[in-house]
């Protein structure tokens, strides 16, 4: 800001920030209320629930909700189904997150260079993302069941038991499904980021003799690093919340709990079995783990940005 030289201009800056601050608060108030009511309050309440003997009760019902310390956490973390669900979601993230980053970046780069049918391709990748999971799951069930198209193509190479009832393949199949379904969204993020990579960098690289692959690794990948961090974070958080796919695609986390996710177990314990306190404890552990992964991703993939 330039230095003020007259009396009238010296008084203005004093009031502007305050007025701007009030205006800013006014504009951000609806979102602030939303965050407090829909995110902060439930999160704080669920932490409170996790440390108490809690169940949902009718208004006016006299119920005791004593503080139980870490009991709910002990119950949750000594339950083999819960432990397995965290292992399952770990497998899911190990497959889904890298696959999402690599495929969406490669496809976005390719789409960025496409001249003809550009809109068609963008829409084609985006359609699965905006289609209801219930509908898409039906298609995948037809594709991946024992006599489905995939097994028919694979012939003797098809796994037995088939994909979705095979303990080893159920979770990777879900990871593949979620990767495919979400790809359109992440491609859009990368496409936006690619518009910010200066063309001059590609020209310089080309002048220096770099081919397409070399340009991709030395210009594109570093150029979209902020988007990569975002894709990593969003896909990790989304993966941590995995529910619909094991609920529908593998019929409630089967076979034998091989595709059960922590959120599915939370749903079973909290809503079906009337143990919201144990479900809240699982949720708190899940939030902490996802935060740790996100911090690590930010630390190692975010660089100095």
């Amino acid at each position: 800001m330039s230095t003020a030289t007259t009396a009238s201009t010296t008084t203005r800056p004093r009031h502007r920030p305050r007025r701007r601050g009030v205006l800013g608060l006014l504009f951000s108030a609806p979102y602030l209320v939303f965050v407090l009511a829909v995110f902060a309050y439930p999160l704080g309440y669920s932490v409170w629930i996790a440390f108490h003997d809690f169940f949902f009760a009718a208004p006016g019902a006299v119920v005791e909700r004593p503080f139980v310390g870490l009991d709910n956490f002990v119950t949750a973390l000594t339950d083999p189904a819960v432990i397995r669900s965290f292992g399952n979601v770990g497998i899911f993230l190990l497959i889904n997150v890298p696959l999402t980053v690599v495929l969406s970046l490669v496809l976005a780069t390719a789409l960025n260079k496409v001249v003809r049918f550009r809109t068609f391709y963008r829409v084609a990748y985006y359609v699965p993302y905006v289609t209801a999971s219930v509908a898409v799951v039906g298609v995948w069930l037809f594709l991946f069941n024992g006599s489905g198209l995939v097994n028919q193509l694979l012939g003797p190479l098809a796994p037995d038991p088939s994909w979705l009832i095979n303990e080893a393949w159920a979770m990777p199949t879900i990871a593949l499904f979620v990767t495919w379904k979400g790809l359109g969204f992440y491609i859009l993020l990368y496409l936006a980021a690619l518009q910010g990579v200066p063309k001059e960098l590609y020209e310089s690289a080309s002048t220096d003799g770099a081919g397409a692959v070399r340009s991709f690794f030395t210009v594109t990948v570093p150029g979209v690093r902020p988007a990569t961090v975002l894709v990593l974070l969003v896909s990790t958080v989304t993966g941590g919340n995995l529910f619909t796919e094991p609920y529908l695609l593998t019929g409630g986390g089967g076979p034998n709990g091989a595709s059960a996710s922590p959120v599915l177990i939370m749903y079973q314990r909290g809503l079906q079995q009337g143990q919201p306190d144990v479900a809240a404890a699982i949720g708190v552990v899940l939030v902490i783990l996802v935060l740790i992964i996100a911090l690590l991703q930010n630390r190692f993939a975010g660089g100095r940005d």
Partner: protein
Amino acid sequence: MQTRRALSAVGIAAVMLALTACGGGGNQAENAEGRGDITIWYSNNEQEVAWGKQMVEAWNADHPDEQITGQEIPAGESSEETIGAAITAGNAPCLIYNTAPSAVGQFEKQGGLVDLSSLSDGASYIEERSGDIAEQYQNPDGNYFQMPWKSNPVVIFYNKDIFAAAGLDPEAPALETYDEFLASAQTIVDEGAATYGIWPAPTSEFFQTQFDFYPFYAAATGGSQIVEDGEATFADTEGYAVADFWASLYEEGLAGQEQYQGDAFADGQAAMSSVGPWAVSVYDDINWGAVPIPTPDGTTAEETWTFSDAKNIGLYTACENQATAWDVLKFSTSEEQDGQLLELTGQMPLRTDLQATYPDYFDANPAYTAFGDQAARTVEVPPGPNTVEMLQAFRDAWSKSVIFGDGDPHTALDDAAAEIDTIAAQP
């Protein structure tokens, strides 16, 4: 400073908003005597909506000061979750004609249900209408927090055309014993008449047990619940026999391990299905026959028990006019309204002497006669607040050992029984 105060005010307002949104309930003592308009929910299938509408119309015509507003149960992941949320929010209606017995214990624990036994004629009305079978719907203390309403006794439907195509007798199929059932299923698959003999949902939801193990266990034991007096019963000779029977079906490829997209029986992929009387109207264009649930050595139809698949009526504490609601509940389960229920839905009112009470209906609809007779011999899920947890523990063990053949089914039942004993002992 002002900004900080404004922020605090916004925060407090948001929290208060969230808390007050959960208000309601009113004074319970006043509510018990209350008379006036009430709201009821009923199931959203076409037949039950028709029944609900005519019942409301019939009541409203004679009670101008105590009008009923009837509506379909709001959509949700399941009816039980919708009802549970409504109880917590304090906005449950007075009566819900779709209360699953497996959820009643939890609703009671939540303080959401009125103890019908506390009403002067509550227990006597229920027992007079339903007879001895009503006892299964008491809570562990012997009180009724649900009105036994209707059952869908599970039997085996078979496709006569598929049986004929496999060279089996479609009019008198050999399905009385486990050996006969296995042999028939094997013939059907070997002959290519259908993909599987039977194809119940092999998924992990707790309620799927009610359509494979439970009816067969009830039949094998002559009416035993899977948990009685707080202890699991199923790790016994009959339970092992049922598990071995189903394990053979899966192992031999006579039952499907994958979930089917659609209705395997309707699509001719499975020759048999375990169903209730609702199936009569659903499978209208299939040439079907019905037999009782098989037992290890065969049992006559008149002696065979099965799972009830009942839906009951709950009177909810959020109701401000509970005296009216109780009168409506009795009106809607009267002989006349039960007859309407039978006529419009084909589901069996849980009342004694069903066939003697409605002889004209069963004469005109012989397809329902077997269900009407079977309704007198049905078993319910165990009562209490932990029913769903117990059923899920059982389902997990069943899924692993029986459906997917991972481990010995007998050991799995033993382990599940021990786990369920622990769950049953929880408050």
